């Protein structure tokens, strides 16, 4: 009986020991999390999440760069030749296969709207250059085609199309 009591009290002590340790670890994690979370984008940064832009003033064959969430965004008014060229590329030739239709809005194929940071390391590619009549990133030599799709070089993905929609014929809401 005595040994059993001793035995059970050792068990109880072990349990308390582990439980205290567990509560301590959870407590420490609860303290550390806000200290890390403060590094995440703050409310004032997140508040810039949605903008409107009128594309009507951009003539065919020209681009503008606007800012959305602190990121540069290309808005390009593509020529007919550029659209045809993009549509003619077979998907099997693409590193990150995506059709031209998937990268534009139906009825607005002439507008190509993309985040202007190279998907490699974030430089802004130079327009109307490179070997595929699209963009060329001077930092590490990535070539994008006239639909902003990666064709050659170290970048892994096509230029990112942000979430957007046409509010009217020429007014675009990004974000």
């Amino acid at each position: 009986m005595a040994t059993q009591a001793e035995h059970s009290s050792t068990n109880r002590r072990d349990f308390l020991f582990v439980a205290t340790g567990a509560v301590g670890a959870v407590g420490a994690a609860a303290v550390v999390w806000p200290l890390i979370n403060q590094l995440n984008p703050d409310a004032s940064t997140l508040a810039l999440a949605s903008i409107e832009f009128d594309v009507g003033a951009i003539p065919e064959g020209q681009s503008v760069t606007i800012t959305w969430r602190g990121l540069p965004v290309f808005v390009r008014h593509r020529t007919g030749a550029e659209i045809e060229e993009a549509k003619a590329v077979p998907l099997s030739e693409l590193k990150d296969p995506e059709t031209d239709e998937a990268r534009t809005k139906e009825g607005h194929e002439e507008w190509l709207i993309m985040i202007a940071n190279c998907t490699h390391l974030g430089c802004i590619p130079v327009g109307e250059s490179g070997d595929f009549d699209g963009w060329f990133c001077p930092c590490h030599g990535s070539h994008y085609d006239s639909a902003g799709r990666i064709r050659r070089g170290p970048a892994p993905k096509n230029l990112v199309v942000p979430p957007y929609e046409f509010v009217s014929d020429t007014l675009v809401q990004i974000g």
Partner: protein
Amino acid sequence: MSEHSSYTPGNAVEKWLDDRLPVVRFAKEHLMDFPTPKNLNYWWTFGAILVMCLGVQIVTGVILAMHYTPNVGLAFDSVEHIRRDVNGGRIIQAVHAVGASMFFVALYIHMFRGLFYGSYKAPREIIWILGVLIFILTVATAFMGYILPWGQMSFWGATVISNIFSAIPVVGENIKQLVLGGFAVGNPTLNRFFSLHYLLPFVIAAIVGLHIWALHVPGNNNPIGVEVKESRDTVPFHPYYTMKDLFAMVVFMIPFAWFVFFAPDILGHPDNYIMANSQVTPAHIVPEWYLLPFYTILRAIDFNVLFIDSKLGGVIAMGGALVMLLIVPWLDTSKVRSGSFRPLFKWFYWLFVINFVALTYLGAQPAEAPYTHLAKLCTAYYFLYFLVILPVLSRIETPKPLPTSISESVLGKAHA
């Protein structure tokens, strides 16, 4: 080596202090009487030079922080304010900026010395690993410091390097936002980098303390790599090496001072005198010269390897190039420490040095042929040297006969 104590308190006050906090004893044993191999050459003075460099950066940095403003609207102007308005600011700012470059000159020489003389071999592995940690922390500190003037290269350098995090599968984009405090480099990024740039040098100083502590357990390696066998192989650190180190520091200060007084901006990039603009990428982004070898390795991987895409591949290669240094003690298993007695090793070592200089050169060139091909070749040799050449040489090489002791090598056979 310091088992016997050479310190006897001279008077009652010293005795009183020695019984309570033996700092004088510690200084006497480790800074003055520490037995040091008598054959150390000038390549061994760079440790002391590096301590001086860290001191210079901390003193000038604390002063610059008194006049600098970490805000995207004001940072660029505040650096110009330091250079134009603050008393002596022109020189203090130049010493800090040039000092970063001189720090890396000394760091690279110190590391290449270790690689040649096998200073990483048993029982000095921990000294080497702590040194590699100091190197990596110094790279991080220098990188964050380069963001602070908020010029074009500051901004785009930060953009390129922070995008490295987005290469991590699944959580990469979230980690990048956590690091930057936004969707792109901005004011939150500048603020936190300033905070960390101020913190890290003190962390480095602490690890330097451990590095020297670990050094004082087995004592110094030396140019012949034969351990100290008797007391006549050594001389006391003071005055023999305190004076030699001081002389080397003075010589090191000559090019340092030349840059500060005659060409303070020559090591920087002209684009960094244009204020940061998130809408315009400079035609040609180059990091500071001391990061170029690793930058070359990063961009040399422009092809997919199995399921690893080129971007992640580049990041793994660059990280691997640094991590590789941590395991060098176990890759080079040759019993002979010093490269002077390894006839084959010598060739591959100097080829590695030339290759490293070539990697530096290629990092500053545009991303086009033939540079991209050369970059792949040099990156391949960097990894081959550590992963293949060092282990294989350890097995097949016949080293030259070693002197039996330091004294014999210094004095010749006649005295042995």
